[in-house]
């Protein structure tokens, strides 16, 4: 096993994928705890669809993919929060709307420019070959930025997640920190969707935190466990996909699913 693992590390593109993937899983799992608890689980999904559209347009215009997709996703995240607050479009409807709308725009752009081909498949389900050197560098810088911001504002993020009204009444600007969470999520989603794929990236946000919530009783331990689970599943998934040439994104999600069910079973047994 160690031999296989070392062999895997001899491929530079795999090392890149591992580094970026671990950083992104870390960000996604930390943010995921807040998103799941705030009932915003689907935000990652709709952001990734917007990201897909943005990437498609970026390729069509020959622009750098990440530099276009990140700002577009950030704007979409802000819009999504706004839509959730307004009473006219209810939360889940707004999310669904953005999801399918963006997907349609993306597919349309691709079919007009390059035609439907394997590229689309890569977008949808991810590919570890998709990252260029500059993408890797940008991903590393941005995900470290996300991590640092998360740590600095950890206490505030906790307060806003637990009780928005109380936080607002005592002077912590809920809107500001909701925006921050949305911003960090948008960046994380765009960074991760190249490896995980548009359709699978939201699992990186949701699964680890749900798994951690099965067994942890403190917010802090939920966050830490979520991060650990996320990294373990990511590495396990990539390793499995290397050994048996399975799709990377799907392998990682399946590792997440297995862990979730193990922990859910564990919780059931403990409750008895």
């Amino acid at each position, binding site marked *: 096993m160690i031999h296989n693992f070392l062999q895997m590390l001899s491929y530079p593109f795999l090392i890149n994928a591992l580094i970026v993937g671990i950083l992104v899983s870390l960000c996604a799992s930390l943010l995921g705890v807040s998103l799941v*608890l*705030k*009932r915003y689980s689907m935000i990652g999904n709709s952001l990734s669809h917007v990201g897909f559209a943005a990437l498609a347009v970026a390729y069509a215009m020959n622009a750098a993919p990440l530099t276009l997709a990140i700002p577009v996703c950030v704007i979409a995240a802000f819009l999504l929060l706004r839509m959730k607050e307004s009473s006219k479009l209810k939360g889940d409807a707004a999310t669904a709307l953005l999801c399918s709308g963006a997907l349609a725009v993306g597919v349309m752009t691709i079919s007009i420019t390059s035609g439907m081909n394997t590229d689309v498949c890569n977008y949808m389900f991810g590919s570890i070959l998709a990252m260029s050197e500059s993408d890797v560098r940008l991903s590393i810088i941005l995900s470290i930025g996300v991590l640092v911001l998360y*740590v*600095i*504002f*950890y*206490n*505030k993020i*906790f*307060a806003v997640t*637990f*009780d928005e*009204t*109380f*936080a*607002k*009444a*005592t*002077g*912590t600007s809920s809107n500001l920190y909701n925006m921050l969470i949305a911003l960090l999520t948008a960046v994380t989603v765009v960074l991760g969707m190249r490896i995980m794929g548009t359709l699978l990236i939201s699992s990186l946000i949701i699964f680890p935190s749900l798994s951690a*919530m099965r067994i*942890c*009783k*403190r*917010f*802090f331990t*939920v966050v830490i466990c979520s991060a650990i689970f996320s990294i373990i599943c990511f590495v396990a998934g990539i390793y499995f996909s290397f050994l048996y040439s399975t799709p990377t994104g799907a392998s990682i999600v399946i590792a997440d699913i297995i862990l979730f069910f193990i922990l859910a079973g564990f919780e059931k047994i403990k409750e008895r």
Partner: protein
Amino acid sequence: MSLINCKNVSFSYEGRTVISNLNFEVEKGQFVCIIGENGAGKSTLIKGILQLKNPSSGSIFLGDGLKEKQIGYLSQQTIVQRDFPASVFEVVLSGRLNNQGFLPFYKKSDKDYAKKQLEFLEIGDLKNRCYRELSGGQQQRVLLARALCAGRKLLVLDEPVTGLDPVMSAEMYRLIEKLNKKEDRTIIMVSHDIKEAVVYATHILHLGKGQLFYGLKDDYIKSEVGKFFLGGRMNDT
């Protein structure tokens, strides 16, 4: 100078006036109970006092050293909170956030203060328990401790005994009274239970299409409004 001074305050939602012409002052050490039917504008007034909603006319002045965002607030529980994976201490400590400034972490004094509030509410032993595993009454006390952490002078309690059984409610009222009498904290409490309110409060603010009554509890009991509502309620039971 009074802690809170409401002058000709009105609130409206999307152009529709919910409540108008509120005039009252809350002094230090008072225990004010806001009562009124559903939709009388109790929660709206609370939002106004907490500066979460601006009055459509008139203004609310804070005085006597009471700072904005330094009001301890006990809100009604949301569904999200009921099964939230956090320890009691994490929840209570988050009340100190308005004291934290730009520091990313809590100081030791914050932690000590939070511990003291837990002790005062007689739930020191729950400190490391998981919030979602507590009973409704215990959760409510934890949230009260958090409110104490946020504000020294004024506590605003929004229906603090909703969903609690009679024993728990009595316990909760006892603690609130202890806070008022022993710690000299000013309390503004919203309640729909007029009979309970009259027992514990020093002052009553009765809302219903405006301000029906504001003043001392004893005057309220003797007043026309008070007689009518208390009488009505007592005949019900």
